[in-house]
């Protein structure tokens, strides 16, 4: 007897479904092998192209290649194949990979080769593409090959709604202009992710600070965009902007806990004799993680004024507070370790453990 549900899917339906699934399966299998085969073809084509570009790149790297006119037959052969789009893209990618590992004259020569092979046109086409990923590639190529005259194209995109385009345009401007390029922070409407901040800081590492930063830091520290304040604090920290001490102190009252945390981190690097007391002043109002951060900071920048404060914190019921207060005490005062040892003997095992921990830590460090 047939089950009712077997009538729901009749043999005809099953047959149709089977045929459809089998067809899909075969299509997928065919697709898989086509992709594999295509990858192989691409690999072979790239191999051919790489034999042409390798000599040129090697010449650039070891300094035997000077310019277009003096080059040998490989340039001529390369020129012949550059009418193909994928070949041009391949060469651009090769040069891009090379230039990232070069500096000085060799880097300039790669840029020159890029210009002379007229590859800039490709990058410009890409930057005007509607597809965000192609546009981004165009931006990267333009700044990688030092196309400073295209800076306006990059500026157009620094506040793009597309995150990737925006990030690469920002990096591009900094890459080409150094600290001057940070002007986009004045009017940035989107937040800078921590990842982007990291990339910006890495880009700036290749440039020399020439005073541009100091001109703008005050307004960035007051920016309505919290991420701009955060990166400004990091600039002040990394580039030791000591004269912005007061502005950074002001950030300790910011509503955003991350900004207050970064401000403490920055103050650690631009501290003066009043900083530790300022931190003590805000201590009681702060959340637990920032309290720990303040104790860590006092450990590095504290002075005699914080002795009573640290002693009080050493008696705090929270063991983490105890530990960091003890560490600050021993770092700031020669008698700190003795105080700790005595407290350990007199009171309980927690202080004894903390004492042993810090004593060993000091030895190991």
């Amino acid at each position, binding site marked *: 007897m047939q089950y009712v549900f077997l009538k729901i899917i*009749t043999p005809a339906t099953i047959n149709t479904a089977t045929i459809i*699934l089998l067809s899909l399966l075969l299509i997928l299998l065919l697709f898989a092998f086509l992709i*594999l085969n295509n990858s192989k073809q691409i690999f072979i084509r790239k191999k051919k192209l790489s034999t042409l570009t390798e000599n040129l790149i090697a010449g650039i790297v070891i300094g035997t290649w000077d310019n277009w006119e003096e080059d040998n037959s490989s340039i001529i052969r390369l020129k012949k194949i550059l009418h193909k789009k994928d070949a041009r893209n391949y060469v651009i990618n090769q040069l891009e990979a090379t230039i990232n590992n070069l500096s000085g004259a060799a880097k300039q020569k790669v840029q020159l080769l890029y210009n002379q092979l007229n590859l800039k046109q490709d990058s410009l086409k890409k930057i005007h593409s509607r597809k965000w990923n192609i546009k981004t590639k165009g931006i990267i190529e333009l700044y990688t090959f030092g196309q400073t005259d295209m800076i306006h194209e990059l500026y157009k995109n620094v506040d793009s709604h597309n995150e990737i385009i925006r990030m690469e345009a920002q990096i591009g401007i900094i890459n080409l202009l150094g600290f001057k390029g940070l002007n986009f922070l004045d009017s940035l409407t989107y937040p800078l992710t921590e*990842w982007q901040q990291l990339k910006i800081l890495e880009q700036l590492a290749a440039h020399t600070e020439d005073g541009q930063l100091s001109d703008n830091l005050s307004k960035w520290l007051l920016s309505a965009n919290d991420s701009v304040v955060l990166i400004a604090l990091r600039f002040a920290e990394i580039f030791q902007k000591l004269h912005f001490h007061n502005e950074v102190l002001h950030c300790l009252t910011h509503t955003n806990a991350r900004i207050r945390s970064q401000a403490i981190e920055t103050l650690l690097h631009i501290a003066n004799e009043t900083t530790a007391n300022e931190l003590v002043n805000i201590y009681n109002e702060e959340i637990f993680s920032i309290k720990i951060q303040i104790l860590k900071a006092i450990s590095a920048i504290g002075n005699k004024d914080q002795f009573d404060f640290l002693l009080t914190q050493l008696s705090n019921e929270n063991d983490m507070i105890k530990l960091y207060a003890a560490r600050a005490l021993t770092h700031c005062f020669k008698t700190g370790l003795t105080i700790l040892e005595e407290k350990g003997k007199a009171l309980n095992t927690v202080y004894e453990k903390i004492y*042993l921990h810090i004593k060993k830590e000091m030895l190991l460090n």
Partner: protein
Amino acid sequence: MVQYVIFIYSILLIITYFAISFFAILEIKSYLQKNKFTNYTLLAASKYTPSISILAPAYNEGQTIIENARSLLSLYYSNFEVIIINDGSKDDSLQKLIQEFELENANYFINYQINTKEVKAVYKSKNPIYKKLIVIDKVNGGKADALNTGINIASNKYLVCIDVDCVLENDALLKMIKPFLEQTDKRVIATGGVVRVANSCIIEHGRLVKVNLPTNFLARMQSLEYIRAFILGRMAWSHLNGLLLISGAFGAFDKEIVIACGGYNPNTVGEDMELVVRMRRYMEEKKEKYVVSFIPDPLCWTEVPSSSEILKRQRNRWLRGTFETLKLHKKLFFNPAYHITGLLSYPYWFLFELCAPLVEFFGLAFFLLSALTGLIEWNTFFTYLFLIILLGYLYSIFAICLEIITYNQYRRQSDIVQLIIAALLEPFYFHPLVVWSSIKGFGSLITRNKGWGEMTRVGFTTQNKTQPIAQTFTELLPVETKRKRLSITTIFFNLTASAKQFISITITLFLLLLASRLVELIQNSVHNGFSNFTVKTYTLSVIKDISFYTQIAGAFCILFFLLAFIHKTIAKIILLICASSLVILQLALSQYFLRTSVLLGSDLWGYSYQEILQTIGSSGIFNIKIILLAVLIITATVTALIFIPKLIKCNGITSYIIVSIFLLSFLFNTSQYTNQIQLQQEFSNNLTINKPYYFITTSIQHFFPSTPYNDIYADTYIGDYGSDNEKNVTTSINYIDEKKFPFLHTMDSTDVLSNFFNSSAKPPNIVIILVEGLGRAFSNKGAYLGSFTPFIDSLSEKSLYWENFLSEGGRTFAVLPSVTASLPFAKNGFCELGNLMPQHFSLMSILNNNNYTSNFYYGGNADFDNMHLFMQKNKTNVHDEQSFSSSLYKKMPATNGFTWGYGDKDLFKKILSETTTELPFIDIALTVSTHDPFIINEEDKYLQKFEQRMNELGLDETQKKEHRNYEKNYATILYMDDAIKYFFNLYSKTKEFNNTIFIITGDHRMPEIPMSSKIDRYHVPLIIYSPLLKRTAKFSSVSTHFDITPSLLMLLHNTYHLKIPTTVSWMGTGLDTVRSFRNIHAYPLMQTKTEINDFIMEDYMLSGNNLYAISNNMDISLIQNDSKKQQLNNALNKFKYKNNQLLSNYKLLPDSLLKNSN
């Protein structure tokens, strides 16, 4: 029932897989496009990267610990520490580490933010080269406890938890940490990474040098499985931000949230999943926006089990881990407060990860058993199996394709071929192994089997004596989910307790159902007399009931235990609701049956809300007494279901035995066997059927209709819905274009009526009287209940009279389309198509084209059953209750404010008042007085007439007593007969009378007076009377409503040369005027709006799955003739197929034909 569960589950699963594939593509595409511009090499060395603590628990890893530690220390990242936690290893792991890395005890002060086992010592290196390394030596406490210890020691913001033997790619840390740095408006709480299979890969100095596909068969299978799980599953859930699992082998976490949640749970074997679920829950409860991210780059390589024993233990553990996690967080299940976690992720894991092995295993076992016992054919079994395997292949090959397009780790074509072969072999060895291990995992949960050896080191039973310093998650979590030891004993006892509770409620339910059944049987016996029902009837009733009760208890059982897994109270409440509903449903349906003598099935769904309201309202069943009684019964039922179970004690073993019986009954659909036992008498047979069973099964068939299918190669296939029997004329129908117009055919030119008529000068008027409920059972000579229609009887003697005539429907909905247009039923009756009714020919439309005027008269609301619309479409004037003047006509008495409208005498009075036209006309009248609640204006008078009539018929006292049970019904029949007499008396005085043909038939047999057989419901008289008749005749051959219009039109065409189309879509072929009993027609009959289960052909009737032989007095008897049954089944299916075709294009006639006819 079980087949539906499996079917719906399979459909959901397939949809889920397709959705997963779709979302995985979106996520991978987005990830690859965004990340192709990132130079990780440059950034990994940046001093600005956030700091990370790598936690690597190790247990007896002495052989590889040094190499693994070196590998971790050499990762390409600037700010990180490596914390190796020696979890009480019994080998020389610690000594090796101390020696190799120049470690010494750091006297570390540990802040126990998370409660863990005792830490013996924390070691740091004297050598500054290894300053990133911290080694913890602790008492054995399991992986979760070791990781918690690491978390207590970790000093950095982000944690990366890995298995110490995993091999990481160089840039793994930066890639894992990137998602944490990319979000601005949401907090990333965890990131998962892809884990790949390292077996057979070449690894040197802790670095992966060459990727190879594993040579070991099981490992290769797992390679495929990992690709599928990570590239498809995890990526799709990442796209939806619904990830619940980050592999314990490699995952990054926000330390602050991990500590706030209380760290890993050491009391579960699925600590990795449990942590992620708890973190998600924590964020949801804090109402903070968050993300659990996942990156598809192959960053972590690990060795997978290459022996089946280890693999089985691993899968057993995974299953238990999933179970424990889901149980611990059952609050999330479909809880909208937890958004996607509660509404999608948790249900997915529950249904398709946890329950999948169970459904697969028992589903397969069920099908296998069905095939072995012959319930399904072996070829069906294998076809389904093949389809399922094919779906699995598709999913695997799709994953392989994605792998090739994205990371293509196995670059050689031969590796891809090997992977594809692995995919093809998977269903035959690896997958069954995995499913079986999972089943054993369930077994372990019940039998207290802790599974693999490592469980012993977890140390379930001891707690750390160290006092917690910081909050633990036990304090942070809501009370009901506080960590508690998941004792297998507890699970077993919980299960037993649930089984006992279920049984006590179910026994109470049985008692209530049987009590309700008893009420039904007693009420019936009181009403219809004890003597009319044999012991067999009562016994069969109880047998059918018990089989249904056990079967539905099986369904309740599955529901109850699944819910009990989530929450016991919810399970109990749902069971009580289901049980109460069933009792009330049974009571309501049995009362319906007792009142109407028909079973309520899916036909309920064929009526609109308004129609149901009108029917119920006018039946008068709703009054304050009934409502109070209903409230009382509901209260009593619920009270009984709550309190009686407390008095029923059942031990564990008995409970399990009974539960098993229920489940088996459910699995094997026991009711279908007991319901095959039939009684000859229709009413008695219906009485034995369990009413909820009938309602539920027909409703399921209604909502999941079967597609008619004919095996054209079967011996019994007859080509069309007719047989090759020469008597059958249906086979001679010449269909023109069955694909486009399934019913279109050339009209049969046989004119069987002309011989009986004199011709007149002008075309005759036609008056069709369709009498509500007029059955042969109580009308005309030979009526087995005695004839209560004396006038109709006398008229039939002066007429052409078909004594074995059949209506096409079991209810009124079918009468107009069948009689006046010979139309197919479509889905719920032709009129129910509403505005979608295809254009068609009808008696009215054709006669209108021949200068007739057409009118439809009905005492009620013609919107009922869409009659008004049907008539409008046929350009027929409608005169329903709205056109009756209240000053001239009197409505039938109302009950509860409802009435069907005007009585039959008023109806005929109305017709007579309107019949003044020069043109020939066709009047169609549908009566209404003989309808439930059988209340008429002159009730007393006709009750007296009823008594007189019984005397005239010579009924004895017993018969009279039986008849008096339906006195109101008979009184209305006598009233209707009188009304027709009144009509004929007055009409005969009009000038039109002599040139009029009268046709009288019933729309169906009144079902409220118990019927004798299935065919009784359709058995009605057909009378064609006219002063133009040359001679009278009585025909015993079978014809139906379908045949009236074709024959009448041929008469008018041949005698009066009316124009009629030569191509039509009539269902009927014309009346049979052979006087002896025979049936040359092959027609479907539609009992209710939702069921086309009846078919007549030759001397047979098919009803459902039963074949009956029809005798010359229209009695039927159940017979066994498989070949004949198959023939009728094929014919019925052929009709259904055509009927379905009609529903696909709503075309009966080509436009050109309609145009010409106009």
